[in-house]
């Protein structure tokens, strides 16, 4: 937290008041997200559009399963990074630089409620996107629905949390709202490419694979592959899960240490 941060006031309010505030803010966040044509288009629709394009390009088998299924798993990974990492980072930079965050600090809305509502709102968008990807795959490419829905849901929640932490961390390094989209995509697109979000990485040169193998998206896509393509439970990949969570913790530490409420210029 900022050295200027003022202690978060204690709130001796009944739980129902806190819950009411959370629901109010969550509804507000959803309204803010869907009202923005750019967000709805680039964050929500873009992974679906990529699935449509890549699905009609690739055929045959990838990883021993029909290509469309492997692409679906990869694009869930891209959707996760796009929504929770890129979308959240861009939104946070814009809000910080336009002093929306600073303005909200002067209201009785507790910081924890604001953060919780923003994270849950992001998770909701990504969960809806995942459902849309499965529906689209089922209709266009006859891909099956996941057999272990609970494991997939767990993967969606964990992935969203990890990439949100990385998104908040990244937002602290971006100094202007205008540049935020460019900076974030400069990280996101190579990461997605190297992690196999847009297709298999089997034929990549060794050094590209070596880079891809340490990226958080690679671990997340491996987990989705395990759960969706092979029908195994999420805990059958403890090392992938641990590596993914380590990225999340690193992001969280940076986020907490560097987070600022106020515009960079002030």
């Amino acid at each position, binding site marked *: 937290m900022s050295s*200027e941060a*003022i*202690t978060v*006031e*204690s*709130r*001796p*309010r009944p739980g129902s*008041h806190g819950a009411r*505030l959370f629901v*109010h*803010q969550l509804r*507000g966040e959803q*309204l*803010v997200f869907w*009202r*923005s044509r750019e967000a709805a288009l680039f964050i929500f629709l873009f992974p679906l559009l990529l699935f449509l394009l890549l699905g009609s390009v690739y055929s045959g088998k990838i990883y021993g399963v029909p290509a469309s299924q492997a692409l679906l798993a990869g694009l869930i990974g891209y959707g996760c990074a796009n929504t929770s990492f890129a979308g959240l980072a861009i939104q946070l930079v814009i809000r910080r630089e*336009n*002093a*929306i965050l*600073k*303005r909200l*600090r*002067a*209201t*009785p*809305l507790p910081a924890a409620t604001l953060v919780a509502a923003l994270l849950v709102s992001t998770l909701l968008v990504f969960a809806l996107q995942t459902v849309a990807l499965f529906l689209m795959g089922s209709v266009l490419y006859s891909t099956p629905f996941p057999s272990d829905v609970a494991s997939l849901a767990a993967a969606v929640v964990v992935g969203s949390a990890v990439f949100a932490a990385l998104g908040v961390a990244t937002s602290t390094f971006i100094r202007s709202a205008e540049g935020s989209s460019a900076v974030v995509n400069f990280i996101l697109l190579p990461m997605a490419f190297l992690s196999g979000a847009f297709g298999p990485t089997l034929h990549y040169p060794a050094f590209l694979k070596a880079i891809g193998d340490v990226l958080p998206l690679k671990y997340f896509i491996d987990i989705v592959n395990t759960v969706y393509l092979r029908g195994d439970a999420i805990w059958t990949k403890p090392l992938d899960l641990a590596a993914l969570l380590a990225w999340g913790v690193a992001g969280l530490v940076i986020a907490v240490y560097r987070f600022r409420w*106020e*515009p960079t210029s002030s």
Partner: protein
Amino acid sequence: MSAISVSGLRKSYGSLEAVRGVDFEIEEGEVFGLLGPNGAGKTTTVEILEGYRSRDDGAVSVLGHDPQSPGPDFRQRIGVVLQQSQLWPNLTVRETHAMFAGYYEHPRSVDEVIELVGLAEKRDARTKTLSGGQKRRLDLGVALVGDPDLVFLDEPTTGFDPAARRAAWEMIRSLRSLGKTVLLTTHYLDEAEQLADRVAVLREGRIVRVGTPRELTTSDLEVEIHYHRNGEEVVVTTTEPTRVLHELTADALARGEELDHLEVRRPTLEDVYLALTEEDAEA
């Protein structure tokens, strides 16, 4: 009872001493103006009172709270208009007010507030379509929607055209009639003169004068008496204009002369302000 009381307030940023020992009291229901050039410490002072910044030294009480560690109702009772902020561009005026209203336990009616700040016609417009003046009114509206007792206005009319400024002044006057305490910062003298019950002039982190606009303009500076003699302008400055004027006119009568272009000038707030804030330049 004081709404705000500040004594010995100090704040530095690194080696820059932004606020160097500031004292003032603001009564409940008072409109108080902090006046000073850019960099005088106005915004730093206000942001300490709003709870954004910690102070290095001094005692501060705002509505009975220490803003550095306020009780839970502190933010229920203050409204803030920042010097620069934008709200969510794609929400409408009404949605934006409703969003803020939801943060407070006892908000005012959203439609009433929109009416009060003169945005009724723009109720359903997205905030990104508002003009600069309308955006400022939106800022004021969301600051009032929680029905605060104390409103902070940091340079509320900077960048306004004259008509928009007049409209904003009317709104700020209406806050007084609602019984709100208002702390206003400005670098416009006419604004302080028009709106504030009392004004503190800030220079280089210190208050150099506090008083009503009238006190500042009557007590402080010498009065200037201008007249022409042999075609040349003569200026006499004095703290005793009645006596000096009597002597001048008596002399002129005795010589049978007319004092051409005779004029007595009281200092304007601008003269006082410039004298207070430019002492260094003259010294």
